[in-house]
């Protein structure tokens, strides 16, 4: 009975509802956008009422906010942190810099397209996005999760070779040494 397609679907729906209402955000301010996370999480905008909560370590976190530009040195850590997280896991690109490089499009040390290195579920544009925009982006993420479309982790596993190749292009010595996914 429990292998039946319909009951699986029901369980999946309930699980997705729970996932969408309990999103633990990894405390990793990768860029300048981290400054707008604190107003979002604290008393003025209070994201905790919608189920968002900070998580201290990647093992416990569900979503990683890439808050702004990523330097090459940070990309390596972000990839490692992402692989340490337990699926289902989501990535939110935060700010123009993650979309197309923003105002640092010609900087030799920042990447331009985040989705070449990590599967991004939601982008929030702006430099920097206001807390309202962050909340809007996060509720978009909730909606995607509820619909069951936030499958970044599976996408990453399916296209692992492609992602790894892109990562290796900017960090040739580092990614090669890394163990595969099992940190």
């Amino acid at each position, binding site marked *: 009975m429990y292998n039946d397609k319909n009951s699986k679907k029901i369980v999946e729906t309930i699980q997705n509802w729970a996932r969408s209402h309990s999103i633990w955000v990894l405390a990793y301010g*990768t860029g300048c956008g*981290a400054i707008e996370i604190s107003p979002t999480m604290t*008393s003025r905008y209070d994201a905790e009422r919608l189920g968002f909560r900070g998580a201290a370590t*990647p093992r416990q976190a569900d979503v990683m906010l890439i808050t702004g530009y990523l330097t090459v040195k940070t990309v390596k850590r972000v990839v490692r942190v992402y692989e340490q997280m337990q699926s289902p896991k989501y990535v939110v690109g935060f700010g123009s810099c993650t979309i197309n490089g923003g105002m640092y499009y010609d*900087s030799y040390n920042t990447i331009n397209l985040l989705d070449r290195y990590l599967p991004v579920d939601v982008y929030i544009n702006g430099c920097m996005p206001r807390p309202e925009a962050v909340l809007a982006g996060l509720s978009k993420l909730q909606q995607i999760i509820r619909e069951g479309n936030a499958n970044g982790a599976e996408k990453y596993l399916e296209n692992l070779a492609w992602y790894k190749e892109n990562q290796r292009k900017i960090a040739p010595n580092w990614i090669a040494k890394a163990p595969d996914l099992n940190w």
Partner: protein
Amino acid sequence: MREKATTIYLGPQHPGITGNMMVRLKVIGDTIVSAQTEVGYLHRAFEKLQERRNWLQGFTLMCRFCVPESDPMENVYARSVEAIDGREVPERGKYIRVMVLELARIATQLMWYAGQNGSLGLYTMGQWSIGDRDYILDLFEELTGGRVYHMYQWPGGVRRDLPEGFTDKVLRTLDYLEKRLKDYDDLMFANSIFQKRTQGVGIVPKENIIEHGVVGPVLRGAGIRSDIRIDEPYEVYDKLDFEIPTQEGSDIWARALVRRAEVHQSIRIIRQVIDQMPSGEYFNKFPNPLKWIVPAGDAYVRVESGRGEVGFYAVSDGTIHPRRMHLRGAAYVHAITLLESILPGQNIADVSAIMNSLGTCAPEIER
């Protein structure tokens, strides 16, 4: 003994670190035996990018040096260009700049309230002060259109005049803040656990403190009355009446008291600025930015930010592009050589608190 040491990487992904940086700690038990700062996670090469942009485009880039406190960076950029170019700023522009700088200082110190108490586990304080900081950001938003990055002070003055009724709103916000600061005192400074955690912790040695490049609240917390606003008065600070608070302890507690007093002084300065605000022009027009040639020369200007001295060295070679821009942030010294020298011997529990009280700001170090 040394072989027994465990290595702990505090960061880059760590809730206790101030920004995206890393401190490599060698610990025995709970005591640190050596510390090494590693930065570079936020290096965007502003100064390199600036060489590809013209003098006006520079000012949108420069405010992004330090995220919690963008206005001093705009101010040094504008003033360095003015110094090379020989450009005057109208009196009203100067007053508006001082007001913005002081509002930014309050916002920084409120952010610091949150960081300092968060690092000690008093999260209530952080929630309150970040919520109250937002009212200042609202003022900024009305004035400049941006909450965090304002891009407001540009060479020759400021970008917009004050909106209708803006000064009243500023005064109302200040009144509210003064009321709230009493609550903060009750929660934080009157708290015996806070005192126990901060007194005698993170002491910056007083001998040769100036030679070590210590600036700002950390230097004033060691009893030295040093402030760019009185040492090298810029804008209209020489016409204003304010005090430079100092403390003797040179520990986290002393620095906390200095910062607390600075908020009150900033409120006092803004009230005076609003009283004395002259009418008239706020901005001397500069030429078409696409053809704007700044004469060859160099200038180093300094500003007192909430974390200490911020210096900016600009070189022009007489073209529409700057030759070189170079920023010196307060954290450049505090977070690397100073932190590495004071951490050994401290408890691992205090690292985050010490970093917060030194005013560490990672993006400012690597730029």
